[in-house]
C-alpha cells in the first residue's frame, strides 16, 4: 500500500474531522475560520443564483444583461490560517517493525501527512509542508486546492529518510515562513532533543504547535523473542541483548520517557498525540480536534 493513498473508508472518516486552532480568540478579528463561507474576497469562486437577502452589490449586472437573470459573484475568502506540516525525515524514521518490514515509520508519517492534507483541503484551509531532512529543509509554501495537495504529495513521494536532521540550523527558516497564527503539526518520532527544542521555540512565539509522535509497534510491544543487535541508525550506537531480558525494563523506561515528554510539551503549550504505525491515521487527528472542542 502506498503511504500517500487514502482508502475510501479512511477518506470518509477524515471528512468528519476538522482541524481547528486551540485559540479561537486569535481568530475573532478574522471572522469565521471556515473558509467555505463565501464572501467578499478577491478570488472568484463561482456564480450562484440570487437569493433573497443577498447584497445587491454582489449581483453581476453584466451577466444579468446577458442572461436576464440575477447571479451573484461568489468569491473565495482566503483563510487567515495556514496549516503547516513539519515532517521529520531523519534516519530514525526509516525504522520498520519486525512483522511489517515494508511499512516504516516514515511511511506511516507520510500517510499521516496525506490525511492531514486531506482534512485541510476539505475544510478549505491552506496547508504547507516542511520536510526536515539531513541535507536541508524542503519547504512548500502554504496553498490550497487539490492541485496544491497533489504538488505536496508529489514532493513527498520520492523522499527517503536518512541522516541526522539539523533542527538548530533550520529553526530560523521555520520562524521566517510560518505565520504567527498558523497551526503547526510536527510529525516526528520525538526522539531527537533538537526537534523537541524547535517545537518549543515555535510554541514560545505564540504559534499553535501540535506534535504527532509516530511510534512503531515494536516500541510499544517489544516482541523480540531472541537475541538481537539493536542499532540506532542516527547515532550508530549498537547494543547486543536478549529480547525477553530487555523487554520489561525497556517498556517501563520507554513509558516513563513518553510521560515525561508529554508533560514537558504540555507545559509549553504543545499538544502531543502518539500514533503507532499500525493504527489508522484519523485517530490522532480526532484526538487533537476533540481536545480543542471539549470546553
Amino acid at each position, binding site marked *: 500500500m502506498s503511504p500517500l493513498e487514502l482508502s475510501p473508508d479512511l477518506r470518509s472518516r477524515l471528512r468528519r474531522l476538522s482541524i481547528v486552532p486551540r485559540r479561537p480568540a486569535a481568530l475573532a478579528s478574522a471572522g469565521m475560520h471556515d473558509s467555505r463561507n463565501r464572501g467578499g474576497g478577491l478570488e472568484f469562486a463561482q456564480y450562484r443564483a440570487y437569493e433573497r437577502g443577498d447584497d445587491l452589490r454582489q449581483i453581476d449586472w453584466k451577466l444579468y444583461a446577458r442572461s436576464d437573470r440575477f447571479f451573484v459573484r461568489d468569491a473565495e475568502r482566503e483563510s487567515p490560517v495556514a496549516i503547516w506540516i513539519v515532517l521529520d525525515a531523519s534516519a530514525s524514521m*526509516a525504522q520498520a517493525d519486525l512483522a511489517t518490514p515494508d511499512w516504516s515509520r516514515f511511511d506511516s508519517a507520510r500517510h499521516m501527512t496525506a490525511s492531514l492534507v486531506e482534512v485541510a483541503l476539505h475544510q478549505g484551509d491552506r496547508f504547507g509542508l516542511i520536510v526536515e531532512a539531513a541535507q536541508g529543509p524542503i519547504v512548500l509554501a502554504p496553498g490550497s486546492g487539490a492541485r496544491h495537495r497533489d504538488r505536496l504529495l508529489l514532493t513527498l513521494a520520492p523522499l527517503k529518510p536518512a541522516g541526522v536532521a539539523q533542527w538548530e540550523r533550520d529553526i530560523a527558516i521555520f520562524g521566517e515562513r510560518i505565520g504567527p497564527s498558523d497551526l503547526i503539526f510536527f510529525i516526528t518520532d520525538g526522539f531527537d532533543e533538537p526537534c523537541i527544542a524547535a517545537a518549543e521555540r515555535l510554541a514560545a512565539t505564540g504559534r499553535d504547535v501540535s506534535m504527532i509522535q509516530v511510534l512503531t509497534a515494536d516500541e510499544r510491544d517489544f516482541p523480540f523473542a531472541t537475541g538481537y*543487535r*539493536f542499532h540506532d541508525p542516527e547515532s550508530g550506537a549498537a547494543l*547486543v541483548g536478549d529480547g525477553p531480558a*530487555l523487554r520489561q*525494563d525497556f517498556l517501563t523506561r520507554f513509558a516513563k520517557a513518553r510521560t515525561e515528554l508529554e508533560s514537558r510539551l504540555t507545559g509549553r503549550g504543545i499538544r502531543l498525540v502518539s500514533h503507532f504505525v499500525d493504527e489508522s491515521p484519523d485517530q490522532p487527528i480526532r484526538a487533537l480536534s476533540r481536545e480543542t472542542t471539549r470546553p
Partner: protein
Amino acid sequence: MNAALLLPAALAALAALLIPLVIHIARRTESRTVDFAALRWLEARPKPRQRPRIDERLLLALRLLLLAALALWLARPVILGAADDRKVVAVAPGVSSGIKESLAGAGDRVVWLTPGFPRFDGSPPASTSGTVSLIRQLDAELPPATPLTLVVPEILEGADAQRPILSRKVEWVVTDSTLAAQRPSARPVPVLVVRHAPGVTDPVRYFRAAATAWAAPGTGPRFQAAPAAVPLDRGTVALVWTAPGALPEPVVNWIEDGGTALLSMDTRLPIEGHATVAWRDAIGLPLATAETAGRGRVIRLTRPLEPSALPELLEADFPDTLLGLLTPSPAPSRVAAAAHAPLEGASPYDQPPFDLRPWLALVIALLFGAERWMATRSARAVAP
C-alpha cells in the same frame, strides 16, 4: 518381572546428550541486527542473565530421546522373568492325537516332544528316540512356575540309564501308543579284517575260526587276512592287528575316523586315551582294555596271542566275546513309560532374560524418522 541392564557401563554413552544441548544453546549467540531508534531507553547492560535459552525445544527433546534410546540399546536392556508361564502340554510322537482335547485347556501351550518343540497340530512329526533327553531339555527351558504335562506312549524309546530328575512336579500321562513296537533288528556282523606280520600267521586262525562261527549257516566267513603292508579296504569296520611295532599312519587315521581295532600286546600306538578293562578272564584279571581314539575305538590285548598265555582263545565263547569287543551292543533304551515317570528334585534352571533390544531398535528407528522429519521440514526458520 523386572527390568535390568546387562551392560550398565554403556550408559556412559548418555554423555552424548550434551551434543544436542550444545547445538541448541550455542546458536543463540548469533543475533540479527535490527534498527531501533529508541535505543537510549534500552538499558545498556541488563543484569547479566546466564539462564540459557534453548531454540526449538521439541526438536531438542526428540534428539535427546533418540540419544537416550541409543545409549539404552547399548546397555542391553532385558526383562527378567517375562517368560511365558502358561501350562505346557508336551505330547510325545506316537500318542493318539485325540488326547489333546482331554488334557489341554483353552490357554495351554501344546507342543510336540520333538527337537525344537514345535506347536502341536494335527500332523505328528517323525518319531524320534530321544524322548527322555527332550523331557529334560523341556524342563530346563521352562520357567520354574510353569505347570507341565507330559503325554507319552506306553513304551518310551530313548531312555537312558537314569530316570529323569526334573525341577518341577509334572503330570505324567501314559496313553496307548499308535506306533507298532519296533522289533530290534539283528546286529550285522562286520567283515573281520586281520593284518599280521609277514610270515607270522599263527594267530590268524583263531580269528578265522571266530569269523566262521559268526557266519550264518550256509554262508562262508566274512574274513580277510593279509600282511601288515596291505592297505585297508574302504569300508572296513573291524580290524585285528597282530604285527608288532608301531601302527602305520594310515591305520591310525582310519581308527580316528571311526574304525575299531584290536591290537596285539606288542603293537605300539601313538594315541593314549583313558583305558577301561573290556575283557576279563574267569578270575577277573584284565585280558583287554578299551579306549577311544578320535571317533574310533582301540582294544589292546594285555597278553600275547597264543593259547598258552591267553587260553580264552580256545574257549567256545571266544567268537561271541570278540564280536562283543569289536561291536559293543547298544545300551538298552526302551522302557515302560509307567515305570519311568520323572522324579522331582533337580534345582531349577535360570531362564534366559527377555531381550528388549529389537523393540528398542524399532523405537530408535521411529525416533530417528521423526527427528529427520522435524529437522528438514521446510517451515523451519533456522538450522541448528
